[in-house]
């Protein structure tokens, strides 16, 4: 017959050992699996992020490559017009500017970002062609803040050209008198700001005209800009806020687009 005290001690010893062994095994098992699970989740997140960035990059590439076919068509039509008028000098001038713009366009479309100076070069070229097309009906002005280093500060390739194109085609185009597009580059404390203003008919009237023409789709360039800005923000490449307002209420007519480039990414 065993001593009851020894037996109780024995019970506790055996049970305690078994419980300790079981708890130890359980803790080990769950720690190993949880650690691996967290590692894998981190890895999957990184992969998903890299994939998303790749998708964004490809989408941005595709959007960068979209130059409004209307612009190409209109430019070639204008050249054809000068040729038909036997105005060799103007047609050569136009063709030369057009070919230079095409070269710049293809050169920049391979890049993700360019300096403000390069973007201004492209805009100048583009506006020169539009000026030829609109003859005396279009004027443009580019104002640069002396505090802004346009050679150093970068912006996404051809982000301004579609906005300027909108200002001309939807603002100035419908205006009966001469119109002006002004592009202002200004230094602000967290980056720089770009104003694109036109004294055309204004965005509200332009939209009304679009409706009347039963052409209810949004202007092509406007879509491209908004899509690009969204993708740039999602890709953490640029943080650009975009606003558009009709300035007709202030006694004048026209549209003002403001782009704020936040460089504190």
């Amino acid at each position, binding site marked *: 017959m065993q001593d009851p005290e020894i037996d109780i001690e024995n*019970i506790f010893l055996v*049970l305690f050992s*078994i419980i300790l062994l079981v708890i130890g*095994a*359980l803790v080990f098992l769950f720690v*190993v699996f949880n650690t691996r*699970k967290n590692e894998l989740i981190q890895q999957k997140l990184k992969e998903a992020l890299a994939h998303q960035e790749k998708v964004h990059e490809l989408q941005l590439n595709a959007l960068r490559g979209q130059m409004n076919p209307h612009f190409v068509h209109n430019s070639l039509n204008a050249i054809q017009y000068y040729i038909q008028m036997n105005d060799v000098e103007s047609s050569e001038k136009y063709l030369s500017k057009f070919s230079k713009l095409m070269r710049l366009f293809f050169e920049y479309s391979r890049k993700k970002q360019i300096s403000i100076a390069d973007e201004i070069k492209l805009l100048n070229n583009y506006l020169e062609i539009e000026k030829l097309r609109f003859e005396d009906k279009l004027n443009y002005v580019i104002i640069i803040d002396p505090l802004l280093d346009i050679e150093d500060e970068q912006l996404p390739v051809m982000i301004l050209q579609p906005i300027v194109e909108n200002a001309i085609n939807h603002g100035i185009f419908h205006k009966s008198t001469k119109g002006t597009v002004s592009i202002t580059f200004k230094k602000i404390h967290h980056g720089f700001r770009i104003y694109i203003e036109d004294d055309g008919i204004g965005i509200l009237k332009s939209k009304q005209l679009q409706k009347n023409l039963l052409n209810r789709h949004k202007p092509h360039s406007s879509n491209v800009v908004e899509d690009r800005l969204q993708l740039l923000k999602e890709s953490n490449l640029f943080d650009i806020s975009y606003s558009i307002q009709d300035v007709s209420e202030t006694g004048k007519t026209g549209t003002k687009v403001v782009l704020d480039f936040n460089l504190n990414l």
Partner: protein
Amino acid sequence: MAIVQWKNYKDTTERYFVFFLLYVLLTEFSGYIIPHLYQRKSQFVYNLFITISYSFYLHWFASFLKRPKLILLLSLVFLGAIISSLVYENFFIHLWGYAFRTGAVIFLFCATLYYSDLLKQDAVINYLTSRKFWIISGLLIFHIGFLPLEMLQRQKGIVSTLNYRLALTFLNIILYGFITFGFYAGSRN
């Protein structure tokens, strides 16, 4: 739980578990009732259970471990252990030590292989809703606790019958708790 969740796992490798669990219930019932009704040892019921349960586990592991040659080898080793038990241990009087210990070690080995495979797969992200994970973990915990207990119990005087029964009850609660949770969690996967 296994019966309630049947439709959720009837097309998986765990589909035979419901029948196996019913067999476990039958074994426990027979093991308890036979000594009371017929005043004879019920060891043969448990020896039969050892043979069938480890054969079942081996068949189950073979269905997802993707190592047919290794499982065949382990099956042959287990068969050898059964033959040894048949020769050296009485089927009706003694609990088959050779067969149990060999089966337990084979199970622990297969469980390790399963864990190792799972840790390399993306499925590890959802391991908490894996039916297999909970069943194998329950069985693993049971064997980790029961294997030393069974070996100590054979050394007379080290572990009393009361100790043995208490520890076995505790391990059974964990084992069937894990299996029950496994069938519940698996249905939420």
